[in-house]
């Protein structure tokens, strides 16, 4: 066999690699193939260059180094045949990234290919340029791409539009050159050109305020009309997804309208009707419809206020929240978080459903819902909300308990209307999830208790009761132990009883027993034991009869 021909076909190599039983076997096969390819490269083998690059790409995907093949991409791109260029450009996009200097060497080939007579070759060049060009290459080739925005074939125009996006992102200074050609793309009928044209305008607005003003003034009405036509269009099989004509175009148009309407009353006015139409007419039983509704809501919430539309939008989100589909609930929560800054009251109306989501079986949803609830808390609703959250605490799993506990403690501290309420809530949290409560938090609780002299009796009794029912939570034990030590006499003598309290009989020896249990319990760490000992010390001076 000729030692310089990489004899195996691509398919055979793949099969050989897949049939390897161990990593070592695979490495051996790959090493052999790479050696053959390296040899072919140094021989400047033309016949198998195409196949060798394909093999290299496969090997690359397995995770092996393949930089020795980079120049092969360049040679293939420089060949005259379409198949060679096709695989060459693909190899370029896979094996290289924009930070490599080798990439610059392709600039000349790209320039030639952008002017090729075969439009598919122009397409290959635009694709490669659009995916990995560096700022320098962008600058060099921008004029070619600009020209191609007006090429006779729509397939090329749409590729040029996306390629332009990369160019203006890499070199924002060039943005103004693309404003006019981009605007004319908006008047096209071909869907591919339209969606890429709309996307180009959207990205132009993000990098150039000049572009934003231009499109806002000149194109808003036209875009609204295009969206109207789309929304009212009859069944078009080529673009139909779930009964909607080209949802992708709907969404892109809504995105661009969002940017144009933001901060501008006239532009916002212009689009109110179509937004209302989309929000009410689009069916939401399939993902495509929901994707459009989601985008529509986003646009409504960003543009200038139109009371009716906002209500419509929030209602859609409310419906989303009760949807059985996790994805829909997730995006609704997301959007509601943004909506809070715009219309907090409207979001408050959906509090109940949001609270349901805190108990959701999906971790991503639980977390988002909790973040949202946190933002919704204020002085007037802190009590019922905290109650609900503590209920969720009981049902939640270990992973979530930590986050939830931290949030509840933070809320309780921030919004507490009365000390007694604060103490009650903290007690509940400590009983349920004391192990997750941070040190600063229970220290703060002790400080509050000691400063609230009228509540000393209440606190110690409540803690004693809690301690009787659950000794699982370390922090609860510590706080209980401290209180018993400080206020043991109040506990035993029912001092400072409040109206709401039930009487409780605790003898001095009961109190001492409680402390003894704390020391002896298996889970008690040094801190707890130390605290219990100090408490016993305090009690020994107050309960002389139980000194032993």
């Amino acid at each position: 066999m000729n030692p310089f021909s990489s004899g195996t076909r691509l398919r055979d190599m793949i099969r050989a690699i897949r049939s390897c039983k161990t990593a070592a076997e695979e490495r051996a096969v790959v090493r052999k193939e790479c050696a053959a390819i390296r040899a072919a490269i140094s021989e400047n083998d033309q016949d198998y260059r195409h196949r060798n690059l394909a093999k290299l790409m496969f090997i690359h995907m397995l995770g092996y180094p393949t930089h020795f093949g980079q120049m092969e991409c360049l040679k293939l791109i420089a060949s005259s045949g379409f198949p060679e260029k096709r695989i060459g450009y693909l190899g370029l996009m896979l094996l290289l990234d924009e930070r490599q200097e080798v990439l610059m060497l392709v600039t000349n080939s790209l320039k030639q290919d952008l002017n090729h007579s075969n439009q598919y070759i122009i397409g290959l060049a635009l694709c490669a340029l659009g995916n990995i060009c560096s700022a320098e290459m962008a600058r060099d080739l921008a004029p070619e791409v600009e020209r191609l925005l007006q090429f006779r074939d729509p397939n090329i125009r749409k590729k040029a539009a996306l390629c332009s996006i990369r160019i203006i992102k890499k070199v924002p200074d060039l943005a103004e050159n693309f404003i006019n050609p981009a605007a004319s793309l908006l008047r096209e009928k071909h869907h591919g050109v339209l969606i890429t044209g709309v996307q180009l305008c959207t990205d132009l607005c993000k990098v150039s305020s000049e572009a934003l003003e231009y499109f806002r003034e000149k194109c808003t009405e036209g875009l609204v009309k295009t969206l109207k036509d789309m929304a009212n269009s009859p069944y078009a099989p080529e673009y139909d997804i779930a009964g909607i004509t080209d949802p992708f175009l709907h969404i892109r148009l809504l995105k661009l309208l969002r940017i144009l309407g933001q901060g501008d009353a006239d532009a916002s006015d212009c689009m109110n009707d179509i937004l209302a139409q989309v929000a009410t007419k689009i069916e939401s039983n399939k993902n495509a419809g929901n994707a459009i509704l989601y985008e529509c809501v986003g646009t409504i919430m960003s543009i200038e206020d139109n009371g009716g539309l906002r209500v419509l939008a929030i209602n859609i989100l409310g419906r989303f929240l009760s949807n059985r589909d996790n994805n829909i609930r997730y995006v609704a929560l997301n959007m509601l978080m943004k909506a809070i800054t715009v219309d907090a009251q409207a979001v408050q109306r959906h509090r109940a459903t949001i609270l349901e989501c805190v108990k959701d079986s999906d971790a991503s949803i639980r977390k988002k819902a909790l973040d949202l609830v946190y933002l919704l808390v204020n002085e007037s609703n802190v009590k019922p909300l905290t109650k609900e959250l503590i209920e969720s605490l009981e049902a939640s799993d270990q992973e979530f308990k930590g986050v939830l506990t931290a949030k509840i403690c933070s809320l309780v501290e921030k919004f507490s209307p009365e000390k007694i309420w604060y103490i009650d809530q903290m007690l509940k949290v400590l009983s349920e999830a004391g192990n997750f409560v941070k040190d600063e938090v229970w220290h703060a609780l002790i400080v509050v208790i000691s400063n609230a002299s009228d509540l000393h009796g209440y606190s110690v009794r409540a803690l004693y009761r809690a301690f009787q029912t659950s000794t699982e939570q370390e922090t609860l034990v510590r706080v209980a132990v401290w209180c018993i030590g400080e206020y043991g006499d109040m506990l035993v003598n029912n001092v400072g009883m409040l109206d709401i309290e039930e009487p409780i009989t605790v003898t001095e020896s009961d109190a001492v027993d409680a402390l003894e249990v704390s020391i002896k319990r298996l889970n008690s760490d040094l801190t707890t034991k130390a605290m219990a000992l100090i408490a016993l010390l305090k009690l020994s001076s107050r309960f002389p009869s139980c000194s032993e």
Partner: protein
Amino acid sequence: MIHFVLLISRQGKVRLTKWYSPYSQKERTKVIRELSGLILTRGPKLCNFVEWRGLRVVYKRYASLYFCMCIDEDDNELEILEIIHHYVEVLDRYFGSVCELDLIYNFHKAYFILDELLIAGELQEPSKRTVARLVAAQDSLVETAKEQTSSITNIIAQVAK
């Protein structure tokens, strides 16, 4: 924008990777490892979105393959699910009931198709028919070139005898 597209098998094998943002080769390996760990362990009933490094990854499982696309926080996740489905349907049409094996042995074709769907991390063509037509046209250019080469080779072989 879509920052990258990943196709991974249930065992964590990479079937396709396409990068629209700058990630060095080392970074790419790291990303793939991290995301595989994150996504492959997610239960079936959970939502199709994971938050990762300030970005969002939308994934959908089709048979033994996970299709993942990484997007910005303010992009439309539901739309990305449609884009993933769009790609899968085109692949299905092209290969005729596509399966993972098709994508392994014809990975370059899967890439060619992806390149007709996305450029610079944005959607290029909403019509599956158009995408199929464009890919078929380019395939036939390759076929024609192959025939020409082999016929020339034949002629030369004849002459050389």
